[in-house]
């Protein structure tokens, strides 16, 4: 299945896009999408292990399965405030 991945901050800058599409076998975990994302955007490699994942606006682990129709995002450590 195709999953749209939203990117933020330096991850977006490195990828050159705020959203990329990756293909993974269903059912896919967050880890599957992370691997597909890094294959698709090799420039994200320096941030790879530091990227947090969110599924439907909640932090998610690499083992979490992504429900169909979810919004998926990857982003580097936060620095708001």
């Amino acid at each position, binding site marked *: 299945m195709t999953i749209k991945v*939203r990117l*933020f*901050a*330096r991850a*977006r*800058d*490195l990828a050159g896009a705020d959203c990329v599409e990756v293909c993974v076998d269903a059912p896919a975990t967050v880890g599957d999408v992370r691997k597909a994302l890094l294959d698709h955007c090799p420039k994200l490699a*320096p*941030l790879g292990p*530091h990227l*947090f994942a*969110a599924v439907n*606006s*909640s*932090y998610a682990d690499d083992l979490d399965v992504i429900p169909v129709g979810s*919004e998926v*995002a990857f*982003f*580097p*450590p*936060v*620095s*708001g*405030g």
Partner: protein
Amino acid sequence: MVRLTHDEIDYHAVTEAVRSHAAGAVVLFLGTVRELTAGRQTVSLNYDGYGVMATRTMQQLEVEACRRWPVVAVAIVHRLGHLALGDISIAVAVSCPHRKQAFEAGQFLIDELKRTVPIWKQEHWADGSTEWVHPGTGEVVAPATVEASR
């Protein structure tokens, strides 16, 4: 009440939102754009946010503060976009019956917000470079402008 905005933060309104006859103490925290960080000079900042998740995460922090302390009211406003020196990036206001509770709840809210809410700061240094601040990534200097020109 939690909110993201691209406009200047009216911290008077944020504070009035938590005042109550039930509260004897109000604590307001303001984060403001500081000129010097470890000897480097900032000329401005840019804040990016994952809006829907940032709002949701701030709402969860409000709920958690109300669970831990006898909070009367919470108001949090975070600004996004371009900020000049001295501008307010965040206002957190909390009211409680007593002051110790209000200080603890206020400090909890800003500490957790900085740890968990998906918002990112980009430094615009006086030397013309820019740098996303991503603690722990080991990229001490990550000039996006240089990157983009390669």
